[in-house]
Structure formats: C-alpha cells, structure tokens
C-alpha cells in the first residue's frame, strides 16, 4: 500500500515530512502505513535535513491576568503555572493540556526537558500540599497525549540539574533531598524505554546546580554544598558519555560565584552561554566573554534557552511585571522581540526547547 496514491513512497514521504508538528497525531491516526512512517527515526531526520522543523519552546508559565475584572476569581497567593508553547520564529502561542492529575496547576519548580518529539516533566512540589514529587510525565507530540513515566528513583529530589541529549536521554544530577542536604548523585532516563539508570556520583554535592548538554557531555554547573547554603561555587563537573565517567572538577568554571540558572548549552559550536550582570556572555577557550548587553527593558531574567544559532531570553523590567521575550541571533548579536499575547506574559519557571 502506497503512502499516497500513485506516488512512490519516497515521494509520499516528501509530503508527510512537510506536515507541521502539531498535526503529527493526525497523521499517526490515518492508517498503519502512515503511523509507521511517522514513527521511524528516518522521518525526523529527513525533516531536519530539509529544514522543515520548527523551534518550539515549552514553558511552565504563570497565569497572569493583567486586567482582573470585578467579581472574578481572586488569584491565589501562589501563582498557578501551566504549560505554554511558543514558536518564537512566528510568534505563535498556545497552551498544552495539563499534566494528568495537575489540572489546577503544574507542580511548583518542576523541570521540563525536551527529547525528540517528547516533553518530559519531572518532579516539583505539589501546588496544594507542597509535597515533593518524583513523578515523571511525558507528553508525546506524535500522539498528542500524556503518559506517566517511571518515577525518579532514590530520594525525592528538588532543584536538581537536568538536561537532555535531545535524542533519547534525560540526565539528572544534584539537587537536594527532603532534609535540604545537597546531593551528588546522578541519574539518566531513557525516554523510549521508560527506564532510569544510576550514574556514578559527582565529586561534589551540588544543590541548585544547572545542567547543560554540550559537546557530548552533560555539564553540571555551580550549585552549593549542604554547609554552604546559598553560597554558590564556581566549579563545574562534566559527565562524559563516551567514557561514562565524570571529568575532574573544573574549578573557576564560572568567573563569579553566582546562581548558574541562566547558563545554557544547545547553541551549537560547543558554546555555553549565560547572563552575567547586564550582559550575555559566551564561554570560549575557558573564558567567559561578554558579547552583548541585555535588552534595555529586561533587568530581571526568568528563563533562558538556546538552540542552533539562537538564544531566547524571557524576563521583565521589574519583578511582577509582564514578561517580555527576546531572541538573540548568535551571529549578528542582534536582539529581536518576540510577540507575546495576553495570558502568555507571566513569569516562566522552567522550560525547554524542541525542534520538531
């Protein structure tokens, strides 16, 4: 059975790879041959190679009603976070269906990671009971549906570093346990197999560290030891996938002891980027160099991400003001504003970037 009548399958595939990602689930529901095609790795490979993928940012974003009407529901003191989706290249915004069991708001401080066509939501605190969760939920864009993944093994982890290799695996390291003890343990999650494996421990315990995947390594940046609460280290450790070992600790990885949450990989060319003071800086040859200033109306950065050749930054002029979004072209270092919409300008707690 041909994919499309009268067309050799090769050509039929040319048509299917041009269908936008938000219709993948339709394609997968047509017939067996179409479902099979869309699930092959070849499908995404071809799509990427031909440049038909879109950059999609998924975020845990606060619901921010700028003009509350009289008699409306009083927003609870803790802001409610839900999953929003943005295509920065064309200013498109939408919401994703809520995580099963969390229809009234995402777990606080949950982590989002993108792996292929999947969005992985891990951990966080129950917005009502503030109980730490080790639950994992996976949203597949190819079926447009949620499933519950295997729980994160071990103690209930908060504020851990995580990153994905964008293809199959999510890496988790550090964070703290129920007693606010910093952790040095690390894990890896295979999304397709729905399996967690233990990685060797890091040399140092790192609470509130940042994860970034770059150059075949999972970098865990900064963080602090249990008895150094809030005093961030400048060191970092990198897990080498090819040797399945942690590289020796790199002291002075960061040039100032600061919270590493704006440090991101994914920009290509082995670069790591971060926001430092009012600048964007790039790590090149073990040195951080400021490459440009932040846009004038962003003083408070809430979320940063990067993909090939671009950086995306979400922040606000001052705390609790509507957030704005800017994209930085990493060749020209020029900022472009991304249109936000009412209802999509709340604080962003975490997010991830997918190419679909």
């Amino acid at each position, binding site marked *: 059975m041909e994919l499309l*009548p009268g067309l050799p399958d090769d050509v039929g595939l040319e048509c299917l790879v041009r269908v936008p990602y938000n219709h993948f689930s339709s394609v997968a529901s047509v*017939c*067996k041959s179409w479902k099979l095609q869309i699930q092959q790795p070849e499908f995404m490979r071809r799509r990427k190679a031909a440049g038909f993928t879109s950059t999609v940012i998924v975020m845990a974003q606060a619901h921010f009603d700028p003009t509350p009407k009289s008699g409306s529901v009083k927003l609870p003191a803790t802001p409610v976070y839900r999953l929003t989706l943005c295509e920065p290249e064309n200013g498109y915004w939408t919401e994703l269906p809520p995580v099963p069991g969390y229809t009234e708001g995402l777990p606080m401080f949950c982590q989002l990671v993108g792996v292929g066509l999947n969005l992985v939501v891990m951990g966080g605190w129950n917005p009502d009971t503030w109980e730490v969760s080790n639950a994992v939920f996976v949203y597949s864009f190819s079926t447009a*549906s949620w499933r519950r993944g295997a729980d994160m093994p071990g103690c209930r982890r908060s504020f851990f570093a995580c990153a994905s290799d964008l293809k199959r695996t999510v890496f988790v390291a550090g964070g703290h346990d129920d007693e606010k003890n910093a952790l040095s343990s690390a894990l890896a999650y295979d999304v397709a197999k729905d399996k967690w494996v233990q990685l060797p421990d890091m040399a140092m315990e790192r609470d509130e560290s940042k994860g970034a995947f770059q150059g075949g390594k999972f970098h865990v940046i900064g963080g602090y030891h249990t008895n150094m609460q809030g005093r961030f280290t400048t060191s970092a450790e990198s897990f080498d996938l090819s040797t399945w070992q942690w590289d020796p600790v790199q002291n002075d990885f960061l040039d100032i002891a600061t919270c590493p949450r704006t440090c991101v990989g994914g920009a290509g060319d082995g670069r790591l980027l971060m926001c430092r003071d009012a600048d964007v800086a790039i790590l090149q040859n073990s040195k951080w160099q400021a490459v440009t200033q932040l846009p004038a109306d962003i003083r408070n950065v809430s979320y940063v991400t990067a993909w090939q050749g671009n950086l995306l930054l979400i922040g606000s002029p001052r705390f609790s003001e509507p957030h704005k979004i800017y994209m930085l072209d990493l060749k020209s270092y020029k900022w472009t504003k991304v249109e936000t919409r009412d209802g999509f300008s709340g604080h962003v707690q975490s997010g991830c970037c997918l190419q679909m």
Partner: protein
Amino acid sequence: MPEGPMAVVKPEMKPYIWLQTTDGSIQQVEEEVAMFCPMICREVLQTGMGSSKNYAISLPQRVNPAILGLILDYCRFHQVPGRSNKERKTFDEKFIKLDAKKLCELTSAADSLQLRPLVDLTSRALARMIEGKTPEEIRETFNLPDDLTEEEKLEPLRNLTDDPRIRLLNRLYARKRKELKERAKVKNVEVEEEQLVDERPVDELLSFINGDGESKGVKAAKNKKKNRRRKDLSGNFSSNDSNCNQFKEPNHLPSGYLIGDIDNATSQSKSAVFQDSASVTFSPKLEFDNELDPAMEEELDREVEDFARRLNSVWPERMQEMLSLGQERRPVPVSLNGNGAVK
C-alpha cells in the same frame, strides 16, 4: 534599422522537441520549455533523441498526456528568465489549486521527470491538504485503508491549534447539518443546508441551536448520549492510574472541553467500561447515536443550553465556574494556604 546590402533575413527557426507518452500519443514542445525538465534535457543531450517525430523521447509511465500538459504549462512559465520572485510565487499558488487526485498525479509525474522545484511545490500543497483534514477526511481523500484499531487510532488533541469555541461550534453545526439532512431524507424535503455556514455570528448560531423549537435541541442532545461516554475519557489522561476518575476536573480553557465537563458524576460508572491500558487521549470528536433514552433527554438538553451559555460568558466568570465545579467533585480535601485563599 540600417540594413546593409549583404544583410540576409533569416526565417525564424523555432526548435521543437518531440515527446511520446506511454499511451502512444506524440506531441511537439518548444525546446526551451521541454529542456526545463532535467530528465528530458539529459535524454536530448546524451542520446540525441527528440529531434523528430520518429525519434520522440519516451516519457516515463507516470506522465500521462493531461498531466504532461500541466507540467509543460509550469515549465513554460518558469523557464522565462525575467520573471520576479513575486510573479513566480503568484503563479505557483494558482497552479496548485487542484484536487487531491490531480496533485498526486502531478507530484508523481514531476518526480519521474526530476523536476525538483515542482515536486517541492506539489508536496507542500499535499502537506497543506493533509494539515487541514481530520484522519477520517484524509482517508477519504486519498483512498487509504482504515486499518488501525480503535486503540491505535489516537484521537489527536486538536486544541493545540484551534480555538476550542470555534472547534466546538463547528462540530455542532456539522451535526446539525447532518441531522437536518437525515430528516430531509425522511420527509423528502429540500433543506436549506447551505445556509448553515460557519460565517454566521456566534449569537445567531446559538439561538439557532437553542431556540428553533425544543424538539431540535432535544434531538441534538440525544445524539450526544453516546458521545458522553467517550467524553468521559477526555478528562482521563493517565493510562495506568485506575483512580483517574478523580481527576476529571474541568480544564483550563484552551485545553478544556466545555460540553463534557459537566455531569461527570453521572457518567463515571459508564467510563469504567472504557478504561483500558492503552494511553487514552483527549477525545473531542462527537459521534452520532440515535438511541433514544428518555431519561437522558432532559439532561442533555440542559447540556446544550449550558454550553451555549458558557460560550457567551466572560473568561474569568467561566474560570470561577469551572473551579467551583471542580471543588464539588474533588474527593481530595480542599486546602487553604497560609493566606486563606481557597484553592
């Protein structure tokens, strides 16, 4: 123009290429047009064929005369060097306004002639066609088999792109239309179906759905009885959690499904039938069911009116409503946070 005594006026020589399709028919085509196709170009240059009727180039089997005509139109336009990008784009947009069958034939033929730009154009058009249709419509359009099991056929969460109001209204209109068609068949009367178009303002449609005699509203409501079982699953995302009934709370607007949200309590028993281990997805697709259950009529009638009312209400009020509905049904005790705000 000065003409010297030695000027010779040459007659216009327009070279032609001769092409033959598999049905045997032969035609001659202006050289510059035919050479725009890489396959033809290669044949001419490598084998010297095409110069006369007896040595016509045999075109691949996938190129029939009608499609060849279309392809040559394309080539004739694009081979002219002076055209602007805008002109080309405008031509292309008009050119691909074809039905699915023709588009497929065209794509196939263009591919066999290695006319890459046309393959790109037609594939894109086919992709756009696929994008605009439901899986059912895609199967119909392209004559594809319906060979997936119900489990495999995951109803997509179309709310990713659509405004749920418009989507739901569309479904109501479609059902209304179908219902009227059926009644027309029975009565053998011409129904003015064509008027039931989406361009009508919301208010007008709502009054149509609500107003036009209670009988119609009730009938429409009855048809939703079967749907409601399906809709119960709509709140049910977790596959392995047997307690997921608890979580069927009304969702935030864009991902929510307005009609099915209410009356979950009554439908909880029915949903047990549909729990399976496969990942269940949000299923807004409405279906027909002409079973009449008198007990359900009133309930469903209320549902339609409720939906209509909610469509018209303002978002914050709606959210308030949803939250309060959610509060009623949730078996987990409502917690108060430190500031006393109820969640």
